[in-house]
């Protein structure tokens, strides 16, 4: 069949995405690194020692996994939402739409483009964190799996956001009003065991909680929730978002009149 052609088309989209974010690395790669340095200095070095231990670790050690995860989430999402929206805006998305590229290839290409940026930023932030704390990885497989799955999930989310977006404002609404609050409330800075019972329960509907905790388990070996359950939930999340993305492309929402 056209497997070979589809693979070439996929590589082309992925390559184009990587060229894009490396060309504008000052906007795409550098900012999260700078933000993280600030977080490490303020929460880790200055405030951290007064907080003491959390989950049996230095506060600094405790928040590093969450902060890495936070930058991966933001970068993956931002890459796809801004790249795909501007492709729509400039109509250059038509280049792919007129070509015999199946919808799943378009979706995978853009998604993995976002994952690529997420991973590069994640690696950079991890590197930066080594200046502030030591990092031992408890379980490499779990760590890597969570990182990739989370990145995929949010890249897909960015894609769906871009499909619905009708203006440049629309691409910052979700990151500002949904993503950031959920990330902050997702246990990046604290263990949910500190919360009153009601809020502990409420936190469980926040998908980012599972991602941050599974990742923290991978690195530190501690988690507020069962890691198996966390994986099931993240996996489910990816599947649902992927299906929505395919459905929207199929319907041509925001792309074909």
């Amino acid at each position: 069949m056209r497997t070979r052609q589809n693979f070439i088309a996929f590589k082309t989209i992925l390559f184009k995405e990587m060229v894009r974010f490396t060309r504008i690395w000052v906007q795409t790669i550098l900012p999260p690194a700078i933000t993280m340095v600030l977080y490490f200095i303020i929460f880790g070095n200055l405030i951290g020692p007064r907080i003491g231990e959390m989950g049996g670790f230095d506060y600094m050690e405790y928040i590093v996994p969450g902060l890495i995860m936070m930058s991966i989430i933001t970068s993956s999402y931002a890459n796809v939402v801004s790249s795909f929206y501007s492709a729509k805006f400039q109509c250059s998305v038509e280049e792919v739409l007129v070509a015999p590229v199946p919808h799943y290839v378009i979706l995978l290409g853009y998604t993995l483009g976002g994952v690529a940026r997420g991973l590069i930023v994640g690696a950079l932030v991890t590197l930066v964190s080594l200046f502030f704390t030591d990092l031992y990885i408890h379980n490499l497989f779990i760590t890597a799996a969570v990182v990739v799955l989370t990145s995929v999930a949010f890249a897909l989310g960015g894609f769906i956001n871009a499909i619905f977006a009708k203006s440049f404002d629309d691409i910052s609404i979700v990151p500002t009003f949904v993503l950031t609050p959920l990330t902050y409330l997702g246990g990046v800075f604290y263990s949910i065991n500190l919360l009153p019972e009601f809020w502990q329960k409420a936190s469980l509907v926040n998908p980012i909680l599972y991602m941050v905790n599974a990742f923290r388990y991978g690195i530190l070996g501690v988690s507020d929730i069962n890691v198996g359950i966390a994986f099931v939930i993240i996996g489910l999340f990816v599947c649902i978002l992927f299906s929505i993305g395919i459905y929207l492309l199929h319907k041509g929402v925001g792309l074909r009149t």
Partner: protein
Amino acid sequence: MNAISIRNLEKVYPGDGEVYALKGIDLEVEEGDFFGLLGPNGAGKSTAIGIICSLVNKTAGKVMVFDHDLDTARVLVKACIGLVPQEFNFNVFEKIKHIVVNQAGYYGLERRLAYERAEHYLKKLGLWGKRNVQARLLSGGMKRRLMIARALVHEPRLLILDEPTAGVDIELRRSMWEFLREINASGTTIILTTHYLEEAESLCRNLAIIDNGRIVQDTSMKNLIAQLDRETFVLDLAKPIGILPEAPGCVLRKIDDRTLEVDVSKEQVINEIFTCLSAKGIEVLSMRNKTNRLEELFLGLVKTDDSMPSTVKAHAH
């Protein structure tokens, strides 16, 4: 085989002011043809092209491209077509060579072949020297040529160009025509829309005129030109004249003291008019066509559309 065969194609753009853009058009374009799709602004040309190229969803009707049905074999249809759209639609921050090479990639061409083809077509279109430049730095004419190179990189059997020469200077337009003729001669079917009738006359073998979502004429260029049965000439006179002279067999009009207009039917010998004028002592300095004959005919065919004057009026207020 037909490159394109369209049956009863309809398009309604939904929304508040629903637009009935195509009201059931039938169209056939033979393989190897150079086909012109003409019509006034808003006639539905780009809509029809958009449907053929999977950028617009049709409301009803059937579209076949090289015997592949758009509804059941969309991938095969897409693989046959190269599109040069009316509006610029590339990422302006991308480099020229990447735009062309990536397009080849979307069509499944290996990277190496993609680079070879990109080089070939960029050279052909005089853009090779600009290959490492971002697209936003090109002039309007260069951007048009970039889109042509991009549409050809997978060497489609059917090339569709939506107003490819809009905003292109005369010299460049001629060389583009030459290039398109070459492409057509090598076996590629071409469909082209244009507002320049001279362009259609010079390039197209067959054409359809579409007006207000309907095909009002579908014929060969030869036939269309054969329909031109009358021409109007403008005569510039050496000396001012007083009263309009009589000339048997033709209609003379006085525009001013030194200018006459004359309608000549196709069978009429022009000498007769001059003989008649000489006899009355009128000397003609020069003679020219009043307007492009084809333009007159075109306007005659599409003048049923009365929406234009009202919108123009609305703008005048």
